[in-house]
């Protein structure tokens, strides 16, 4: 890729400098991004060490790292992580298992859409975490209230996106298939379903964000274990280092889940028939 650029460069004695410049240009995004990140962390550390602000309030990168190191060797931390992980996986798994089939069904059947849309639209208009006090009354403060709020948070975007994926399937393709007398099942499996894939993944990504939100809020509000519980406790006792480490865990989870879904989507893209 860089060879033509290389040839354009005139004087050979400028080679050394131009190689550095080219490296910079090729990786400008990473260089600038990495630098600002580094500067941010250094400034944070310097600020915390300067004594202008009590490190109790803002912590510092090294303190957070130290707190993380200590937590990793603490069995309570692993218990919290397991609890939060279970809440996320159970709730999100149930949301996927319900949201995609129901979204497909609503997209396919106009009547079903008419019957269910008042409920879906209402739930969509309200942050589902609002229902938390009710869910706690119904299910208690254990893991299941969190699973329920994670499920409710994630199922709506998955369902709505799947449904609009079905609605957006090319009418031309369906008409062509129909005039070649394709069966309903055939039309569904070879036109409608592949067409929904990008929509479903959009929904899955939104849903993952909502699911994580559910874990955090559920655990902040009322819980006995979990990373959100850990954060809340640490906040109440002014252990900002631990709070930051907990936030980092949620951040990492969010990034990893989205990256995994992107990867999975690419797999599906390969499988998708090349229609256009």
């Amino acid at each position: 890729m860089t060879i033509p650029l290389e040839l354009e460069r005139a004087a050979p004695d400028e080679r050394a400098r131009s190689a550095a410049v080219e490296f910079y240009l090729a990786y400008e995004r990473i260089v600038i991004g990495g630098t600002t990140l580094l500067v941010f962390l250094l400034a944070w550390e310097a600020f915390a060490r300067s004594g202008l602000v009590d490190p109790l309030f803002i912590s510092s990168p090294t303190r957070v790292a130290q707190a993380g190191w200590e937590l990793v060797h603490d069995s309570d931390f692993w218990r919290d992580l397991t609890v939060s992980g279970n809440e996320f996986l159970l709730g999100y798994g149930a949301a996927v298992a319900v949201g995609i089939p129901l979204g497909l069904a609503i997209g396919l059947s106009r009547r079903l859409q008419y019957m269910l849309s008042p409920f879906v639209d209402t739930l969509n208009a309200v942050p589902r975490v609002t229902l938390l006090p009710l869910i706690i009354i119904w299910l208690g403060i254990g893991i299941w209230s969190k699973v329920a709020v994670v499920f409710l948070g994630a199922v709506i975007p998955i369902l709505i996106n799947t449904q609009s994926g079905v609605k957006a399937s090319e009418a031309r393709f369906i008409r062509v298939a129909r005039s070649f007398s394709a069966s309903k099942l055939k039309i569904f499996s070879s036109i409608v379903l592949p067409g929904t894939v990008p929509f479903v993944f959009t929904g899955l990504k939104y849903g993952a964000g909502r699911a994580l939100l559910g874990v955090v809020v559920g655990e902040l509000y009322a819980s006995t274990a979990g990373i959100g519980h850990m954060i809340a406790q640490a906040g109440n006792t002014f252990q900002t280092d631990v709070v930051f480490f907990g936030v980092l865990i949620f951040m990492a989870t969010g990034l990893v889940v989205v990256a995994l879904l992107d990867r999975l989507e690419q797999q599906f893209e390969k499988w998708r028939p090349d229609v256009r």
Partner: protein
Amino acid sequence: MYAERGFYRRHERAILGTATVFLFLIAWEGVERGWWADALRPLLGASAERLQLKPIFISSPTLVAAAALRMFFVTGEIWRDLAWSSFGYVLGLALAIAVGIPLGLAAGWYRRLSYAVEPFLSALNATPQVAFLPLIVVWVGTGLGARVLIIFLLAVLPIAINAHAAVRTTDPRLIRVAASFGAGDWRLFRTIILPSAVPFLLAGLRLAIGRGMIGVVVGEIYGSAAGIGAMISQAGSRFQTDKVFVGVLTIVAAGVILVEIVQRIERRVDVWRPPALT
């Protein structure tokens, strides 16, 4: 006969929708009043009792309606909460717009700035921002400041990200034409980029409205004396289920109204939007 069928066809959506909502409400009311338990007692015997639930668990449509009537018009207690919540919401959202739109537009225009802020924006976007709440409480306490900050944090990202995308997706041909006719940066920005960005900005605002609602509820649930979220949380811990439902429905109504307003504006702007952009 034909006319009747035509009527059903024309209003199928409304009829089916109302019917299911109605059935749902009746089923709900029945569970609380024990209609189903009474009806099925001959069949199920004593275990039919399980079909009747105490009002503190599920309340009922009539109880919720009565509570709403009382809270809105008799005691009027909800207005104070509503005012308190709206105040924080408007402040947080205004701050998010004031920061998010300039930041997003600037990051979209200057490539290097975009590289610099990208790691922060994408990391924050992947995080459930409410996890910062305990930190915010350590910094500014549980008062108005904490609520405004969490609403800001939740709402600023969709606004900034959409503003960024808006500049990026501006038709490059238009920019090149304007630039070759000697238009300066400011002129380019004002006459090409900003107008074509408006739909994106509104879409971002629509998302931000929903996110901000989360901020209101969570910020108040976590530690606040007044506001709709605080009211819901207190009613929940006192098992006043009907009040919880009134609070939830109030938030639903507020969300629907706000989104509807933005969508109206969006539709109007779509008409005005230059047709070259598709």
